[in-house]
């Protein structure tokens, strides 16, 4: 465990010392929230306060998904492309330990990002969540973040190059954005596409994050979503470790 903590601390430090990472992962989600509220807040039927209550869980969900799929691949891919992972391979550390360190680092950064968005929403726009809703949300948000990061690590493992990893991650992100009800109602989709969307990880992530914050409950499909989330988490984790790449190709 000591090894795990030292390595995770080192990677968290290196992440937090990267200005681009700080901007995209900590400042940008807050800016996104500000833009949403300023542009759409006043026009909303529920008024600005109602809009804020409704939009904050959505922004958090989008951030979790985009950070996990796109943001979390950067650290692994950059270390691989710089040859750092090749050097690490000359040590006796196991792939599973390294994978756990990468996941833990990204989960911690994503937790910080989520906490920052929620704190900013509360302080700047008066977003409120009852304590029982927050308590219910926390473990589910943690599950959603871990799943999203594990998916990003799977993309890293399967991609021989950084550029390809980013392309794959973005395709997966936008594909799920429009097919799982995150940015447009699923009723507008063809029935078969809607059915496919319900089996994608982003559907489970969206429901697990939004329901507790919006409604204070797990939602009608809680068991199904939890099962889906755990299944995707285990599968993506196992595959990411199995196909882990120490070096870039080409």
């Amino acid at each position, binding site marked *: 465990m000591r090894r795990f903590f030292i390595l995770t601390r080192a990677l968290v430090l290196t992440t937090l010392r990267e200005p681009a990472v700080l901007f995209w992962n900590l400042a940008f989600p807050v800016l996104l929230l500000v833009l949403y509220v300023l542009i759409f807040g006043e026009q909303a039927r529920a008024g600005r306060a109602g809009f804020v209550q409704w939009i904050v869980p959505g922004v958090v969900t989008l951030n979790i998904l985009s950070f996990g799929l796109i943001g979390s691949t950067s650290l692994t891919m950059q270390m691989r492309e710089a040859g750092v992972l090749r*050097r690490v391979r000359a040590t006796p550390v196991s792939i599973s330990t390294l994978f756990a360190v990468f996941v833990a680092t990204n989960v911690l950064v994503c937790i910080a990002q989520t906490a920052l968005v929620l704190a900013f929403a509360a302080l700047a726009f008066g977003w409120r969540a009852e304590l029982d809703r927050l308590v219910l949300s926390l473990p589910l948000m943690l599950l959603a973040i871990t799943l999203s990061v594990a998916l990003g690590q799977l993309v890293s493992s399967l991609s021989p190059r950084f550029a390809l990893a980013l392309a794959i991650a973005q395709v997966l992100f936008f594909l799920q954005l429009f097919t799982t009800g995150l940015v447009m109602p699923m009723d507008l989709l063809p029935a078969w596409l809607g059915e496919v969307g319900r089996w994608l990880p982003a559907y489970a992530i969206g429901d697990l994050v939004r329901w507790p914050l919006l409604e204070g409950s797990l939602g009608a499909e809680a068991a199904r979503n939890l099962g889906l989330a755990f299944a995707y988490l285990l599968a993506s984790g196992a595959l990411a470790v199995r196909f882990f790449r120490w070096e870039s190709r080409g």
Partner: protein
Amino acid sequence: MSEAPAAIVVRDLWASYNRGRIEALRGVSLTVAAGEIFGLLGPNGAGKTTLLSCVEGLHVPDRGEVSVLGVDVLRHPNAVKRKLGAQLQRTALISNLTALELLEAYAALYDCYPSRQTLMALLERFDLVALAHRRAGQLSGGQQQRLALALALVNDPQIVLLDEPTASLDPQARRAVWALIRQLRDEGRTVVIATHMLDEAEQLCQRVGVINKGRVVACGSPAALIAAAQLAAELRVAVDLPLALLRALPAVSSAEMRDGYALIRSTQPEQTLQALYTLARSHNASVRSIAVRHPTLEEAYLRLMSESAETSAKEA
């Protein structure tokens, strides 16, 4: 005198890239004795880095055997990695971490948790104490190279593998690294250096394995390799004797006048010199000055490379 036990044994090692399309090693066999500085010498692309990668467990060979201190690398890679310290050809450091943080993290990769005092002592050894809290990305090329060497020692390894350890260093820094490498040997560690710098190999290594096109073309001490190449020493002599007489001296391959001196090439310089003094006395001539330049490892290496190219051409 008993032979030193083997630190690394490589037997009939074949390795390739691109699913066998590029052959990097073709039946390499060699032994590195415990406690010696062994040099892998060869041109770029000869297979030096691939050979080190196979020993480090970074590249899986197609066939053959590699063992480190009696442990099979293919069967027990992690046990071997614990005994090795590695500095790869490309210095790849996490640029946002400080020198001290990097040492701590790399030690943890080996499941080692040295005290801060021990880590500072390691930095001290590489003249990096003043830079302990500076990020790796802010260090100069030479400082990064020294830090990479410090990282290779963080697990207190018995064997240290260094791939071009002085590349990109200025002459002063090179000599400082050489001194550190000698220190490692004096501490009883085995050091393997891959280099294409002949002076480095000649200055540092007890034995050298010359690799070309994936094959070991020669192996032995620098002196033995020079002797085996049967190269002539150059005697620069100020003496008033006709060239014909000088050419007739034993072991002389050629003699000519250059800048007022006789330039004599001899495969047995001591024998030639004795005969030269005798000849001068018998002709009442005096030998006013003598300078002997022995053949270098570089000349022996060039001879080996040209012989290796001829052999390859014949095989083709």
